[in-house]
C-alpha cells in the first residue's frame, strides 16, 4: 500500500524542486554565487563521469605484432595529443593488433632513412608505423606517416594528413583507419562514433538521463540532450549529421530528430500510446518506427520530405523494433505473432509521393529459442545481430544469424544484454549489458575473439548505437 502512495506522489516531488529557489529570500549576489558553484560542480562531475574507459576482457591470441614509433616533432612545446599513442590504442582495441609497448621500442625513427628493419625483425614485429608532425602557417598541423612491412622490408603506405590542434584526435583515428585497411583489407572504424544513454539514479523519484556521443574509443564524450525522464533508442541518420531518439515528456514518449551540429530539435511523432524505436532508411529520406495508438503496436514509416505516414503491419500481436535492410527494400522487426518474440522480414515498396506499402506477408527469420529481438542487419545485408534468450533466466545475449547458411552463433555470455549495434565496417558489435553494479557497454568482434567493456564511473550506460562512416 505504501508503495503505491509513493508512486502517486513522486511527480509532485520532482517538480517541487524549483520552488525552493523562488521561495527563498536569498540576495541576488548570493544566488549568483550559488548558481556559479552549482554550474561548476555539475560541469566538473559531468566531465569526470561521462568518459567511458575501454577495458579488454578477452584478447585475440592471433593479434598481429606491430610497432608504432612516437611521431617526430621539432616544434615548440608539447603537441595537443599523443598521436602515435592514440593510433596504438586504436589498433590494440581492434583486437587484431598487438602494438609493442613504448618502453620496448629500440629506436624512435620518424623518417624512412632512420628505419633499421633488422632491429624490428628481431623484436618479432610484422609492421612498423612512423610519422612526423610539423606546424604550418595558420596553426595547421601536418602529419606525414609511413607504414612498413618489416618482413619484406619495404614501405607499403605513405600519406599525409592535416588539421587544427582541436582535430588532433580525429586525425589520429584517420591514420588508424588507413593503417588498419592497408594491412587487413577491411576499412577501419576508428573514426566512427557511438551514441549512448546514461541514467543516474539520484533518488527513488529522480533519475537524470543524458544522451551522449563519443569517439568509438569512448573519448571526447558530449552530451546532446538531458532530461529527467527516460531517453531511449537513439538512431543515426545515414550521413551521421542527425540523431533520432525517443524522449519522455510528462510521462509520454515522443520521437525527436536532433541536428548534431546546430543542436536543433524537432518533434516527429507524439501519438497516443507508444512512439518508439525510430530507424533511418539507408537513403535518409524516411524514418521507420513503432506506434501503438494506445492499442496494438504496429510498424509505421514516415517520409521526412512529404511527412506522409504509412502503416506497414496490422496485427493484434506486438510488432516492434523496426530496422532497415541496407538496400532499403525490406524492414526487419520483432513480433510475437508466432507466440514468442522472433524476428521477421517485411518487403516494402515506396512510391514517389512518399507512401510506403508492404509487399506480401512478413517472413519469419529466427527459430532458435523462445526470444529473439531488437535485430539489426549487417552493412553487407547477409547477417543479423539480435538479443537472444538462452537457457538461464538472465541469459539474454548477443547472437548473429547468417541469412544464407542459417548458421546461428551466440557471441557473448554476460547478463541481460540489450541494444546490439554493428560497426560501419561490419567487424565489431556494441551492446549494453548489466555489470556488477551498473549497466555498462560491451564491444565484441564478430568472430567472438575480442571482447571489450566500457564501464562508466557512475550510473548506468545503455542504448549504444554505432555511427555510420563519418566523412
Amino acid at each position, binding site marked *: *500500500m505504501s*508503495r*503505491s502512495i509513493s*508512486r*502517486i506522489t513522486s511527480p509532485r516531488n520532482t517538480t517541487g524542486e524549483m520552488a525552493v529557489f523562488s521561495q527563498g529570500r536569498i540576495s541576488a549576489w548570493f544566488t549568483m554565487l550559488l548558481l556559479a558553484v552549482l554550474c561548476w560542480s555539475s560541469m566538473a562531475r559531468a566531465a569526470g563521469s561521462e568518459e567511458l574507459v575501454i577495458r579488454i576482457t578477452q584478447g585475440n591470441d592471433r593479434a598481429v605484432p606491430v610497432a608504432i614509433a612516437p611521431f617526430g616533432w621539432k616544434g615548440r612545446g608539447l603537441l595537443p595529443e599523443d598521436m602515435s599513442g592514440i593510433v596504438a590504442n586504436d589498433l590494440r582495441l581492434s583486437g587484431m593488433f598487438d602494438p609493442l609497448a613504448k618502453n620496448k621500442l629500440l629506436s624512435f625513427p620518424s623518417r624512412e632513412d632512420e628505419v633499421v628493419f633488422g632491429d624490428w625483425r628481431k623484436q618479432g614485429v610484422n609492421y612498423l608505423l612512423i610519422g612526423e608532425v610539423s606546424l604550418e602557417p595558420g596553426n595547421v598541423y601536418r602529419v606525414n606517416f609511413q607504414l612498413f612491412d618489416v618482413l619484406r622490408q619495404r614501405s607499403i603506405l605513405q600519406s599525409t594528413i592535416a588539421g587544427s590542434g582541436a582535430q588532433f584526435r580525429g586525425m589520429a583515428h584517420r591514420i588508424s583507419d588507413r593503417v588498419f585497411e592497408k594491412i587487413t583489407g577491411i576499412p577501419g572504424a576508428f573514426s566512427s562514433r557511438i551514441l549512448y544513454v546514461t541514467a543516474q539514479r539520484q533518488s527513488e523519484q529522480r533519475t537524470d538521463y543524458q544522451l551522449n556521443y563519443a569517439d568509438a574509443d569512448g573519448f571526447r564524450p558530449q552530451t546532446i540532450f538531458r532530461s529527467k525522464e*527516460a531517453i*531511449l*533508442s537513439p538512431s543515426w541518420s545515414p550521413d551521421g549529421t542527425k540523431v533520432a531518439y525517443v524522449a519522455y515528456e510528462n*510521462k*509520454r*514518449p515522443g520521437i525527436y530528430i536532433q541536428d548534431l551540429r546546430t543542436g536543433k530539435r524537432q518533434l516527429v511523432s507524439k501519438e497516443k*500510446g*507508444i512512439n*518508439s*524505436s525510430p530507424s533511418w532508411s539507408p537513403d535518409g529520406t524516411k524514418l521507420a518506427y*513503432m506506434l*501503438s495508438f*494506445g*492499442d496494438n*503496436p504496429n510498424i509505421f514509416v514516415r517520409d521526412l520530405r512529404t511527412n506522409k505516414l504509412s502503416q506497414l503491419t496490422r496485427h493484434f500481436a*506486438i510488432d*516492434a*523494433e523496426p530496422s532497415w535492410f541496407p538496400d532499403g527494400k525490406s524492414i526487419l522487426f*520483432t513480433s*510475437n505473432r508466432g507466440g*514468442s*518474440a522472433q524476428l521477421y522480414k517485411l518487403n516494402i515498396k515506396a512510391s514517389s509521393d512518399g507512401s510506403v506499402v508492404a509487399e506480401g506477408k512478413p517472413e519469419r527469420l529466427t527459430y532458435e529459442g*523462445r*526470444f529473439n*529481438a*531488437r535485430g539489426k542487419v549487417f552493412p553487407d545485408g547477409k547477417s543479423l545481430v539480435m*538479443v537472444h*534468450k538462452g537457457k538461464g*533466466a*538472465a541469459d*539474454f545475449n548477443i547472437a548473429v544469424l547468417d541469412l544464407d547458411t542459417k548458421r546461428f552463433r551466440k557471441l557473448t555470455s554476460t*547478463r*541481460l544484454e*540489450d*541494444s546490439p549495434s554493428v560497426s560501419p565496417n561490419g567487424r565489431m558489435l556494441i551492446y549494453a549489458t*548489466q555489470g556488477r553494479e551498473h549497466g555498462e557497454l560491451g564491444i565484441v568482434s564478430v568472430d567472438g575473439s575480442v571482447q571489450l567493456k566500457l564501464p562508466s564511473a557512475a550510473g548506468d550506460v*545503455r*542504448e549504444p548505437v554505432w555511427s555510420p562512416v563519418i566523412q
Partner: protein
Amino acid sequence: MQMHKYARSILLASAMVWVAGCASTGGNSAGQVDNEAKPVEVITEEEVVVMPVIDPAVQAVIDTGKISASAEEIEGLLQQNEYHFPFDSSELKDRDYQALDVQAAYLTSSRGAAEKIVIEGHTDERGTRTYNLALGERRANAVKRYLVLKGVAADRIEVISYGFERPVDPAHNETAWAQNRRAIIVRGN
C-alpha cells in the same frame, strides 16, 4: 487497518458530538434554548454504529449489487490494484478477474463514477528495452479491456507503459522480476 479505521471513526464521532454541543450551548440567540441537546446525542450514536465497519468505497461497491462477497472480501479486492504476469505474457490470471470485477463495480458505482484512472504497465528488465515498452502497454491494456468490458468508459482510463524503467525492486533476481512484471491501477488522478 480495520482497528485503525474504527478508532478514527470514534474520534470523528466524538468530535461531532463536541461540535454539536458547542453549537447548541454557545448559541447567542434566545430562540434556540427551547430544546435542549438531547436529540443531538441520538444522531451521533447512529453515526458511530454505521461508520466504523464499512469503508464508503466498499459500501458503494455493495450498493451496485454486482458483487456477491462479504464487505471484508470486497475491501481486500478493492485494495488489490496490482496484477502480476509471467515472463513475456500479458495474460491476466483468474484471481485478477475477481479483483477487477470489484474495481469495475467501484468505478461504475455512484461514488466512483466520476473518477479517472491511470493503468501503468511494467515489465522486468529481461529482454529488450523497446520490446518491453510494448509488452508493458499490453499488460496495462489487458486490464483496461476488462474494465471496459465491465462497463467503465474507455475515455476515463489512461494507459502508460514504463517498460522496465521503473522497477519496484531494482535487484537482478527472480523475486524482483516477479514483482516488477505488473500492471497497476492508480486511482485519484
